[in-house]
């Protein structure tokens, strides 16, 4: 007996909404359909695979910022670098007049966002894409910080995507070592106060009025404990933040040289390959973190500390709570959290098994629409329902931004909120309706049957009231707009 209600829940609550005619196929085995999407490894969708490597993004950003500084008469730092690296004035002028670089960088950002949305629209494994986006929001690297503006797409592809069906500890390590995170949360500037580098810098005059970083920067360490693993109240104190910050001093990346901007060599290394442990910046000595002593052991000291933090019971609980909040309800039932946390702990932080625990939660299969879709989910599900496979680059990103969620640019390291109250405001709801109307007008032709689409993508969730409103619309475009703006399409 095919279960259309369960199919609609699987498609909408766990995925990005159904394509027309997809529900019937899912209905044969909704849970199995979901679990099959979490194979251990899976090549990235073709749109994502086609994007340039992390190193290339870094080069493009470096060119852009250097050109901008020179153009703005703010180029003293660049000129000093040029002198040190033996780059001639003539070469430098090439950089500052090469407007192409600037255009290329902009296009690159638009292309990366377009690829993420396009992959989510066309994929046959939408639940896996949702999980990728969940985890890249958990480990937020945001373009809202200018220095990190180029990095979120490659961070997501290189540090998050490979690990969504493997181990949490691996994802934590990949995230912490990626240039995206090292830049976003400043760890590349963190220098052990007793390290050789700090000693060398002591007493050296500051050049050009810019402050040289001289000590520990706790930013990444604090957010690892607060946002990535243990969570607030997870049993750590300020001394633990400082200890973690100390053991990951020297975790940095190969920064491109000015000459590489000018020679225009494509960057081929992934962010993971750019990681570098800089012994000279590393704070020497043993540190005690969460009651455990970590002897001096170079990069392995920090790696061991992160492995232990990933296995901490508070991490299991914190991760389980966030997953349950994302998939089940804003205030998730305690029983579901406990079951998911137990599976996370028992499996050694295996994210495929943890995801199966979420899928197996009976609380996730009740017909009440307990979650309000975030703008990106909302837009993607509308575009999937309309079977719209190609979009002008930038159009969807702009629309999602107007609905309050700038893709890859969350306001802070805690990422986008997973609670309805953040999105169900007057202005943002109105902008969803504008989106629904605008896209409906673009899509609707005389032969588009919005009632049929509603039945196909919402199944039994399509309410009698909404069906009536859609069927009584004055035009195909209005019918589609009413479907997309209906409560059961905005919720899941």
């Amino acid at each position, binding site marked *: 007996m095919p279960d259309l209600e369960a199919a609609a829940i699987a498609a909408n609550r766990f995925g990005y909404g159904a394509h027309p005619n997809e529900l019937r196929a899912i209905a044969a085995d909704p849970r199995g359909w979901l679990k099959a999407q979490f194979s251990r490894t899976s090549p990235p969708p073709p749109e994502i695979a086609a994007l340039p490597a992390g190193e290339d993004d870094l080069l493009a950003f470096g060119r852009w910022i250097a050109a901008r500084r020179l153009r703005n008469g703010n180029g003293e730092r660049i000129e000093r670098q040029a002198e040190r690296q033996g780059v001639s004035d003539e070469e430098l002028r090439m950089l500052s007049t090469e407007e192409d670089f600037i255009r290329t960088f902009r296009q690159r950002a638009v292309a990366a966002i377009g690829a993420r949305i396009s992959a989510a629209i066309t994929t046959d494994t939408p639940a896996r894409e949702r999980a990728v986006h969940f985890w890249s929001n958990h480990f937020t690297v945001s373009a809202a910080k200018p220095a990190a503006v180029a990095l979120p797409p490659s961070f997501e592809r290189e540090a998050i995507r490979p690990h969504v069906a493997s181990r949490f500890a691996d994802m934590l390590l990949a995230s912490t070592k990626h240039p995206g995170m090292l830049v976003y949360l400043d760890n590349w500037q963190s220098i052990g106060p007793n390290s050789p580098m700090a000693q060398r810098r002591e007493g050296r005059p500051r050049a050009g009025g810019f402050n040289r970083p001289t000590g520990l920067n706790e930013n990444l360490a604090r957010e690892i404990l607060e946002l990535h693993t243990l969570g607030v109240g997870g049993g750590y104190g300020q001394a633990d933040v400082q200890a973690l910050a100390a053991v990951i001093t020297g975790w940095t990346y190969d920064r491109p040289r000015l000459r590489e901007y000018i020679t225009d060599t494509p960057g081929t290394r992934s962010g993971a390959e750019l990681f570098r442990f800089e012994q000279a910046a590393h704070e020497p000595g043993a540190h005690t973190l969460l009651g455990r002593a970590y002897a001096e052991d170079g990069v392995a000291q920090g790696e061991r500390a992160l492995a232990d933090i990933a296995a901490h019971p508070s991490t299991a609980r914190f991760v389980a709570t966030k997953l349950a909040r994302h998939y089940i309800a804003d205030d998730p039932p305690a029983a579901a959290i406990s079951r998911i946390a137990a599976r996370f702990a028992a499996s050694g932080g295996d994210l495929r098994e943890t995801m199966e625990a979420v899928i197996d939660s009976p609380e996730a299969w009740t017909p009440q629409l307990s979650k309000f879709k975030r703008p990106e989910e909302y837009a993607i599900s509308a575009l999937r329902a309309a079977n719209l496979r190609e979009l002008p680059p930038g159009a969807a990103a702009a629309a999602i931004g107007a609905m309050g969620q700038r893709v890859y640019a969350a306001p802070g390291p805690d990422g986008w909120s997973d609670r309805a109250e953040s999105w169900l405001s*007057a202005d943002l709801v*109105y902008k969803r309706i504008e989106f629904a109307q605008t896209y409906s007008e673009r899509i609707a032709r005389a032969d588009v049957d919005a009632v049929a689409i509603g039945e196909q993508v919402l199944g039994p969730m399509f309410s009698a009231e909404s069906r009536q*409103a859609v069927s009584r619309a*004055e035009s195909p475009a209005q019918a589609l707009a*009413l479907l997309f*703006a209906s*409560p059961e399409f905005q919720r899941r």
Partner: protein
Amino acid sequence: MLSRRFILAAGAAALSFPAMAWAQAGGEKKFVLVILRGGLDGLSALAPVGDPDYARVRRQLALDNPLRLDAMYALHPRLVHFQELYQARELLPVHACATAYRERSHFDAQNVLETGAPRPFGRDSGWLNAALAADANARGRERGVALSAQAPLVLRGPAPVATWSPSALPAPSSDTLTRLLSLYERTDPALATALQGAMNANALADEADMSGAGAARAPSALARVAANFLKQADGPTAAVLELTGWDTHTNQTGEQGPLARNLRALDDGLAALKDELGPTWRNTVVLIATEFGRTAAPNGGGGTDHGTAAAAFLAGGAIAGGRVHADWPGLAQSALYEGRDLRPTTDLRALIKGVLADHLRISNAALETTIFPDSGAVRALPGLLRA
């Protein structure tokens, strides 16, 4: 209380009645925050023309035809309405003013400006929201309104706030909205409340007199919408407007330069706010502030780079204006902060505390803890408001 349907049917006209009735009742205190994002060149907006080093340091950035306020200070020639307000004692310029932040990153500086914490990323909510949460007299269902799609950090926190922003997409037809509202009312009260709120807000926005305002995103247009929110019955206590484009690294001078254009838009915006507020202006304080100032001397590109202290402005009928507040540090090389920037001598938090304490009657205990954490040593500036 007007019913939803009545508002829907009668549209914008129905809403002007309660607004007028409220204005006659004399009304509560209002606060408007204008954030200038990018770093205002305070030495151009409020030029210390009487400083002996002014012409030497500022070179080509020294103003032609400045609007004199007193022997020491003059306004940028584009700030004509500011000058009128100054003469009416409704403008109080403040100079050499800065937050607690002393580095030069926009990102971190705006974070400090908005959170009110002494360090970047000290917390994830804003001082204005904390003040509205602490305001025992606040009446509106929503305590504040942001004229942007999302509430800026300064307005995030426990107190409920509204947002409104002009849209890039075409407006849905009123028929579609009516059908949706009816559907929501039957099946989804939360969406019904949100949509009704949006329709009310749009009616208020439509009601604003946009003649001569130009684009919907122009500061003067947004200021008029803000005024309509504030003056409605049980309207919010505070509004926040954000103006961008102040990061003038290049070509800062000139009649049509970016700085002159921005200052004119700001000037028009303040005039529009006063005009649209009507009698409510009497009970209003406006604070115009930026994340940091810019270098005292021009750079090689005829602009200025990220600096430290800037100018801030208080305006409004409630302000004891007509004077400049500054502990002037001077522009001599030895007086400059790190040899390049105007040295900060007034803590922006002291200014804001003075307004919040005297205007919104916020307790000192709240000012030192929830509003500006760890700021016990920063005393509120007294005497900013008309007695």
